[in-house]
C-alpha cells in the first residue's frame, strides 16, 4: 500500500439488526483514484456497510474518515456533502421526467426551475464530454434503455460533486454489451481521479475492472487483496468459505420421449403488439433447453403462456396431450396439476408474496393440495413442517419458516422458490433467470438442482439473459429475437459470438458482421415495435 491518505477509511464498523450481526468490526481503506471491489455472497453485509457509508443506517460502533477527516454521516444529505454518490441497483428515477429534470431533482437552486435547468444543461454537457457519458438531456427516462438510465444515475451523482461513487450490483440488469460500456465509463472516471466502490457478486467483473478487492463473508471482512494478485477460485473460496465449483459438472444428456411440444405459438398483448410470432419448440425428457436472448424479446411472454397465465394462439402438447390455451382450464393451477412447475423470472412480483412468512410461500401455488388442507381449513402445521423440511434440504438461511420472505437475501428467496417448484417432482420445469441477484454459493446449488432434475428424466426449459449460464447448463440452446426463434445450437458447437449474432436477429452467422450492422438491426426492431405500439 502507498502512504497516500485513503479516500475512505472505515474503522471498526459494527451494525446489528436484532440478533443478526450484519457488520462485525469492519475496517477498510479505499485509496483515491482506484476502483475498489467489494465482493461477497448475498447477506454477507455489503449493502449494510454501504448503507452506513451513505447515511441510511447508523453504525453501532466504528468511525468513518473521508480523505483523512473524521466524518459523521447521519443521513444521505451528509453523504452527498462529503462527496459520496450512490448508484442503486434499482434506479431511483422519475419515469416521465426528462434526463435533465431527473438530474436536477432534489438539487435545484432557487424557487424557479428554468435557471437551474439551464445551469444543469451546461454542466451535463461538460460532464458528458469529460467522461464520455453521452446522453440526450431531453429524452424521457421511460423512452431510454436500462444502460442509459444507469448513466443518468451516475450523472446525478457527478452533478452533486461526488468524488466517491458507490455502485451496488450495477450490471444486474445490463446486457453484456451494456456492461462493457459501463466498465469503460468507470475506467474513465477512475482515470480522472474519482474513487469507485463496486459492490458485486460477479467474479468476472471484479477481475475485469477493479484494482483492489475486499471480500466479505457473514458480516466480516475476510480479506483485502490486489486484484492482479488473486484469481477467481481464490476469491470464490474466500467468499463462500469453502472450495466452489465455478463450472457446472454434468454428464451428457440422454434425452428420452418428448415431454413438451410447442407449435406456432402466437401472443398479441393488450397494446396490440405481437409478442410471440409463431414459436415452435420441443423438449425431451432428461434434457435442458436453454432459451437465450436479450430481455424483452418474448421470453417472458413464452414463460407466462406455458405457466398458464397468459392466453395465446397455437398448440402446446404436454406428454402428447393437448393443453388448453384459451378456455377455462388455461390457468396456472391446472398447469401445475398437469405437472408443469414454474420458477418465474421475477421472484418479487410473481414467485413470492414478500410479506408472507416463508412457510406460507413454500405452499404458494400448491396451497390447494390435499396434504395442506383439512376440510375448509388449511393445515398450517403440515405446511410449516413441509416448509421446514424443504428449507433444510435447500439450505435456506436462516432456516426459519416463520420469517417473512422479504427478510431473506435474494439467493435464499430464490432457493425458497426453487425448492417449492423442484420438490414437486414436475415433468417439466420452467425456470426463468434462475440466478438473477443470487450469490455464487446459491448459484452453484441451484444449478446442481436443475441438472439433478434433468438427470431424473425431467424436461427443463431454462430462460436466462446470462449467456454463461445458458452455455454451461443447456443441452440445446434456442435463441429468441423479436418473438421468434432465430435458431438452435448445441453448446459444444457454438460460441458467444455466434449466439450474440442470433440474439441480434442475424441468422447468417457464418459471415462476418460489423458492430454497426448489429446495432442497425436492433434499431430496426425497436422502430418496428414502436410503430406497432
Amino acid at each position: 500500500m502507498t502512504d497516500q491518505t485513503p479516500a475512505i477509511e472505515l474503522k471498526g464498523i459494527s451494525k446489528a439488526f436484532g440478533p443478526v450481526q450484519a457488520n462485525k468490526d469492519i475496517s477498510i481503506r479505499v485509496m483515491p483514484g482506484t476502483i475498489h471491489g467489494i465482493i461477497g455472497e448475498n447477506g454477507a453485509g455489503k449493502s449494510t456497510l454501504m448503507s452506513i457509508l451513505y447515511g441510511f443506517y447508523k453504525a453501532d460502533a466504528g468511525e468513518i474518515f473521508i480523505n483523512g477527516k473524521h466524518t459523521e454521516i447521519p443521513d444521505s444529505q451528509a453523504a452527498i456533502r462529503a462527496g459520496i454518490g450512490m448508484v442503486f441497483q434499482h434506479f431511483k428515477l422519475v419515469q416521465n421526467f426528462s434526463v435533465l429534470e431527473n438530474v436536477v431533482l432534489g438539487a435545484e437552486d432557487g424557487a424557479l426551475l428554468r435557471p437551474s435547468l439551464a445551469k444543469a444543461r451546461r454542466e451535463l454537457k461538460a460532464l458528458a464530454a469529460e467522461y464520455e457519458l453521452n446522453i440526450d438531456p431531453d429524452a424521457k427516462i421511460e423512452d431510454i434503455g436500462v444502460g442509459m438510465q444507469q448513466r443518468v444515475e451516475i450523472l446525478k451523482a457527478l452533478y452533486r460533486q461526488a468524488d466517491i461513487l458507490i455502485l451496488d450490483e450495477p450490471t444486474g440488469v445490463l446486457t453484456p454489451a451494456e456492461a462493457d460500456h459501463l466498465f469503460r465509463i468507470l475506467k474513465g472516471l477512475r482515470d480522472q481521479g474519482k474513487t469507485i466502490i463496486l459492490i458485486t457478486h460477479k467474479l468476472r467483473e471484479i477481475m475485469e475492472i477493479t484494482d483492489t478487492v475486499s471480500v466479505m463473508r457473514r458480516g466480516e471482512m475476510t480479506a483485502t487483496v490486489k486484484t492482479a494478485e488473486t484469481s477467481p477460485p481464490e476469491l470464490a473460496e474466500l467468499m463462500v468459505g469453502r472450495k466452489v465449483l465455478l463450472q457446472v459438472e454434468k454428464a451428457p444428456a440422454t434425452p428420452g420421449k418428448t415431454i413438451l411440444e410447442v407449435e406456432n405459438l402466437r401472443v398479441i398483448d393488450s397494446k396490440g403488439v405481437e409478442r410471440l410470432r409463431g414459436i415452435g419448440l420441443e423438449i425431451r425428457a432428461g434434457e435442458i433447453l436453454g432459451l437465450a436472448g436479450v430481455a424483452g424479446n418474448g421470453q417472458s411472454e413464452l414463460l407466462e403462456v406455458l405457466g398458464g397465465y397468459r392466453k395465446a394462439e397455437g398448440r402446446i402438447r404436454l406428454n402428447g396431450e393437448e393443453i388448453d390455451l384459451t378456455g377455462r382450464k388455461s390457468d396456472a393451477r391446472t398447469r401445475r396439476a398437469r405437472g408443469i412447475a414454474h420458477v418465474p423470472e421475477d421472484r418479487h412480483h410473481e414467485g413470492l408474496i414478500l410479506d408472507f412468512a416463508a412457510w406460507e410461500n413454500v405452499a404458494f401455488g400448491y396451497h390447494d393440495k390435499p396434504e395442506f388442507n383439512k376440510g375448509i381449513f388449511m393445515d398450517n402445521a403440515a405446511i410449516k413442517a413441509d416448509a421446514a423440511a424443504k428449507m433444510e434440504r435447500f439450505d435456506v438461511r436462516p432456516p426459519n419458516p416463520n420469517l417473512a420472505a422479504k427478510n431473506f437475501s435474494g439467493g435464499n428467496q430464490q432457493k425458497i422458490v426453487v425448492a417449492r417448484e423442484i420438490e414437486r417432482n414436475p415433468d417439466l420445469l420452467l425456470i426463468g433467470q434462475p440466478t438473477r441477484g443470487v450469490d455464487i454459493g446459491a448459484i452453484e446449488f441451484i444449478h446442481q438442482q436443475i441438472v439433478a432434475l434433468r438427470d431424473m428424466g425431467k424436461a427443463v426449459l431454462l430462460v436466462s439473459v446470462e449467456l454463461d449460464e445458458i452455455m454451461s447448463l443447456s443441452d440445446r440452446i434456442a435463441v429468441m429475437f423479436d418473438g421468434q426463434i432465430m435458431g438452435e445450437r448445441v453448446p459444444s458447437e457454438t460460441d458467444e459470438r455466434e449466439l450474440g449474432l442470433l440474439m441480434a436477429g442475424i441468422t447468417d452467422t457464418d459471415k462476418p458482421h460489423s458492430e454497426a450492422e448489429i446495432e442497425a438491426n436492433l434499431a430496426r426492431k425497436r422502430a418496428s415495435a414502436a410503430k406497432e405500439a
Partner: protein
Amino acid sequence: MQRMPQWADVVLIPLISLLLAALLSALVILAIGENPWAALKLMVDGSMGSTYAWGYTLYYATNFIFTGLAVAIAIHARLFNIGGEGQAMLGGLGVALVALYIPWPHWTLAILGGAVGAALFGAAWAFIPAWLQAKRGSHIVITTIMFNFIAAALLNYLLIGALKPSGSMEPATGRFPEATHLPTFQDMFSTAETALFRGAPVNVSFFVALLACVAVWALIWRTRLGYEIRAFGQSESAAKYAGISPTRIIVVTMLMSGGLAGMMAINNVMGEAERLVLNAVEGAGFIGIAVALMGRSHPFGVLLAALLFGFLYQGGAELALWTSIPRELIVVIQALVILFTGALDNMVRMPLEAMFLRLRPAPKPARKTEPAE
C-alpha cells in the same frame, strides 16, 4: 428484523394517538368556553357509568363491528369498500322483508332468517360494483360510493311506497311481528330484584357480532380462501402466477364484505327499531371505514375500535344532551380520533420506533443458529 415489540405496535401507538386526539379535543372544548374535564367525565359516565349507558355503547359498537369487519375483509384483498352504508341499508330491506313476510315461530329462527336475508341483500348490493371492478376495471371506490346514493334512493322509494302500511304517514314499514323481536340485554340479564340495561337497545345481536369477529379471523388466517384473498391483496401478479383467479377473489370478497355490512341490520332494524325506518343506518357504514383502519383490519382490532367508537357515539350524545357543547363537536372529536389513529399514525410511530431502537439491549456477540459447515 423486528423494530419494536408487538405490544407497542398494537397497544402503545393507538393509545398515544388517542391521548393526543383527546388533548386536542380538550383544547377545542376549552376554546368554546366549556370545561373539558367535566365533559370527559360526562362522556365516560354517559357511556360506561351504568348498565344503561353500557347498553347504548354496546348497541352502537355492534353496528360498528359489522361495518368495520366488512371494510376490513375487503382491505385484505386490497379493495376499498366505501359502500358499507348502502349495503347496510339493503341489509335492512332484507331483514324487513324476512321479518314481515315470513311467519317465524320463534326469535331464534327469526334471527337466523334475518341474518341470512340481511347478508344476501347486502352481498347483492356489493356484487354489482365487484363485478364491474373484476370485469371492466371500474374503480370500486367510485362505484361503491355511487351505490350508496342509489341505495338511499331505493329505500326512500320503497318506504314511501310499497313497504309503507296504508294509512301511515311515516316513511317506515309496519312493526315486525312479536315473534321476531330479539331479546335485549335487559331481557337476558335482569333478575327479579335488579333491572339491568333497562331500556337500552343492546340485544342478542351483539353476540352475533362477536361470532362474526371470530369467523372473519378464521376465514382470513385459517382457510384456503383467506390465504388466497391475502395473497391477491399483497400482489395481484403473484396471485395470477399461483393460479388464483382475480375475478373470483374480487367477487367473493366483496360478497362477504357486503354481507357483513348488511348483517348490521339484525341489530339496528330487527333488534332495536323492530321496523325499517328511513335512514336507519345513520352513517355506521362510514364509521366502519375508520373502525377498520384503526383496527388494522384485524377482527380483534375492529372489535376494540368499534367499542371505542361506540363510546364516542354514546358519550357524545350525552354531551349534547347535558351541556351546551353542540352535537357537531362530537363529530370533531371523532374526526380527531380518526385523524390521529389513522392518518397520522407515522407521527407517533416513528419517534416511538427510534426510542425502542435506542432502548434495545446490546446484541449478543454471536449468532446462535450458525449452521455447521
